[in-house]
């Protein structure tokens, strides 16, 4: 799903805009059910978007990433790294050449041979997990509730400010690990 809460701080959330946001999130939510559909829908997006999405899937180990959020991560990372496009190609090439199919192996290989690429790969991982690109006053929140970190723990806790269970649910025993 796209992040339905991404109203820019100074923009009033008019009812019309809320409807648009809701419609968009429902549409994408439906389409994101399978990776194949996402590919189809965004077939006419720039090749760079597709390359970023594909590398993101490898680096996060998740085939079902949201293409809209991917585009926003890509744009934000691009403003901080002018080499992003070429580095994405290089990292993907490294993975393909060495038949590396998971993030651990890929990062280990990059650490060993191409440390500057490892740094970029980690910036992509950090973006997807935290939802934020950069830090300090320039940090950009791309998504909040849809950051992967929350997905990892959703059987136990929720993104703060969201409530997804009945009141007083918290006295029940959480998962053991």
């Amino acid at each position: 799903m796209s992040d339905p809460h991404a109203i820019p701080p100074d923009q009033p959330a008019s009812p019309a805009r809320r409807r648009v946001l809701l419609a968009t999130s429902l549409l994408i939510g439906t389409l994101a059910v399978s990776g194949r559909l996402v590919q189809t829908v965004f077939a006419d997006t720039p090749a760079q978007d597709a390359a970023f999405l594909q590398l993101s899937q490898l680096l996060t180990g998740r085939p079902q990433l949201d293409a809209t959020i991917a585009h926003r991560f890509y744009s934000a990372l691009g403003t901080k790294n002018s080499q992003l496009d070429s580095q994405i190609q290089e990292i993907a090439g490294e993975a393909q050449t060495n038949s590396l199919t998971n993030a651990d192996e890929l990062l280990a290989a990059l650490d060993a041979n191409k440390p500057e690429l490892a740094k970029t790969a980690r910036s992509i991982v950090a973006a997807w997990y935290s939802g934020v690109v950069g830090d300090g006053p320039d940090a950009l929140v791309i998504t909040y509730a849809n950051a992967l970190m929350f997905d990892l723990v959703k059987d136990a806790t929720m993104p703060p400010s969201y409530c997804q269970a009945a009141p007083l649910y918290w006295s029940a025993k959480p998962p053991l690990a």
Partner: protein
Amino acid sequence: MRANDHSADVIVIGSGVAGALVAHDLSAAGISVLMLEAGPHLERWRIVENYRNGANKDDNQQPYPASKHAPHPEYKPDNDYLILKGPDAKAYASQYLRVVGGTTWHWAASCWRFLPNDFHMKQVYGVGRDWGISYDDLEPWYYKAELELGVSGPNDGTDLGSPRKQNYPMDHLPLSYNDQRFSDVLNANGFRLVSEPVARNSRPYDERPTCCGNNNCMPICPIAAMYSGIVHVLKAERAGTRLLTNAVVYRLEVDAHDNIIAALYKDPEGNSHRVTGKYFVLAANALESAKILLMSNTDKFANGLANSSDQVGRNLMDHPGTGVTFLANEPLWPGRGPMELTSIVDHRDGDFRREWASKKLHLNNQSQTRKATLKALSMGLAGKKLDEEIRYRASHTVNINSFHDILPDPDNRLVLSDQKDALGLPRMEITYKIGDYTKRSAEHTHESYAKIAQLFGGTEVTFDDAFAPNNHLMGSVIMGSNPKDSVVDGDCRAHDHANLYLATSGVMASAGSVNCTLTIAALSLRIADTLKRQLGHVTT
């Protein structure tokens, strides 16, 4: 007389929990009230969106952008609103809000009563000061405050040291697994951990819903299950209070009999306006209230109003805090339910207070997912190892913090700076030093932290011994029975001005070891009662 934009029976300056409670109570009794708020009105949904869209999730001020005409402290980045000096300057880098509803937009909602001995520190323990009133004077007002704010607490007979005549309005919320497990282990090992009374609904109360565990009490409860001052602002307006926002009071005027006759305020464009009333309630927070008194100096009152004692702006207190973080040897999953549910209370009172500060320790039940993620990312992990590290840290992290008492010291003070804000009003320069009385206690707290970490087989035990501010601003317009060394009397009335009342934690003459909001609320309701008598309205 009906309130209009220029005049009312009672002028209330400040729309936080203190001012709003006074305004509501008086308006409900048919008294005309004009309430002035320096800052703007913010909608709850906007604050929630600001939180979700903001990058500095640890900064409770972030969702409340300071206005240019009525700035409040911001630290990320620092807007330098408070000019901080002295050896412990950083420990007074306080957070408060200049917006309609005040700082209880973001608070833990802990609603402790002070202990009887907190009011008589000099008399009982030979340190600090006495208030001039006792716990018994406040007890009925504590209860009324609990009713107004909607406090849930342990009705099972748990003794919290402050004798009660009635049950809490609501029973306490069930503990999270984290709090329950922590409580079981600590209570079996010589600590005393209790369920904390909080202004958070355990059932629908006062047209607000039951807490559903958004785990976001600070910086904003999305559903108003937690009390905030805005509740009584809205109630006061419905009862007839006239609220002026963006009205920055910068001077009180006195007549020949030393009575306050008017408040002058600036609008955001810098134009001055004047409002008149019979009584004035200064409820603009401990620092801003003292600042207004200091800015109101005249030939006769050269040191500012209410300041013949020279104590306005002095005796600044807070609850200097320390903390510890470690990884437990079992999953506890903080982040389920409200952000804080329990406290360790075995050193709130006792003869040790002659030598060192009382304190309260509290377990953090805030979600650790984000911090766990940032830490795991900083370790350079990716893939399955990253996922496992995040889950491990999010489920095993224990964070405990504390409030320590501090003695009132006249040298801990605020003065008006030569530097000015956007409206040309002086900024505040604050000098702060934390004495050995507090430091001795913090050393003992460090040992307690170490013991607790050991009980949970703690690893990566990280002590945060540098004193942190807890934003409980006290002492600036201190209460006492002697007009020569205090600013207000036991009724919170300025010794020097018969029709001026101070509704702020600034009046508190000792800091004790617990959050001060319930005491502010109780004192404010008592002020409202005094005013009703003064204005000839029957009171119950």
